[in-house]
């Protein structure tokens, strides 16, 4: 019976989540889902930051995670505003249909 978790398990989980995020980013066509896949990737990276923080017994990784969260919040605000504008002008959320600079 193991009593502790190897650090590599956390990193593996982080890699899996990141890969799933990339897959969603590449394959999904709904602009909101694509955006959510980016958030998934950011979360995966955050997990590795916190894990490295544990490994080195340093608080720096937590602060990076904190900054990533702040940036993600800013990104969500602007990104969702862009999505709203796109939907207002083209009435579609499919990124394949948003392919011309002019209407």
């Amino acid at each position, binding site marked *: 019976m193991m009593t502790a*978790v190897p650090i590599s398990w956390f990193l593996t989980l982080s*890699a899996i989540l990141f890969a799933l995020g990339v897959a969603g980013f590449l394959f999904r066509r709904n602009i909101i889902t694509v955006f959510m896949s980016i958030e998934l990737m950011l*979360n995966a990276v955050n997990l590795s930051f916190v894990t490295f923080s544990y490994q080195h017994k340093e608080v720096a990784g*937590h*602060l990076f995670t904190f900054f990533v969260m702040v940036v993600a919040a800013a990104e969500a605000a602007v990104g969702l505003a862009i999505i709203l504008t796109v939907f207002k002008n083209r009435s579609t959320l499919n990124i394949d249909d948003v392919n011309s600079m002019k209407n």
Partner: protein
Amino acid sequence: MDVILFLIFALIAVVCAINVVVQTHPISSALSLVGVMGSLAILYLLLGAEFIAAAQVIVYAGAIMVLFVFVIMLLNAGAETKKGRSYLIPGAPLLVVFLGLTAYYVQRLFPANTMVTFGGFTKGGPREIGEALFTTYLLPFEVTSVLILVAIVGAIVLARKEIE
């Protein structure tokens, strides 16, 4: 105990993450993403990152994802209509192979000499984070506040009604 906790929440995270990618309706994806974030918050607690775990739930799950859900509800976005499921046939096995390779390399790069136990790292409380944030990382902190301001202005300009 720690191993069981890790396995349960890692499993929830992975299943929810797969759900984010394969669900056709954006609101199901959004809820699955909230599930991923919640289980990651538990894993942060396991790693001794109390403040980050709380911030994860408050900022990510409680604010950013609510904004997503709000926009999905506002636009009344339906399920993806174009059938795009064919990618799963070559994609799923390739993804599994890729993940296997990644896991293998991570295991090789980080030999299991560092073990994670609950309580093995206790400097993740709000006091320590605050001290580091306002001394060592003061400049990045101030820069992010400017970034937030820019984002607010940008979002308002983008989403405002056109005045003729």
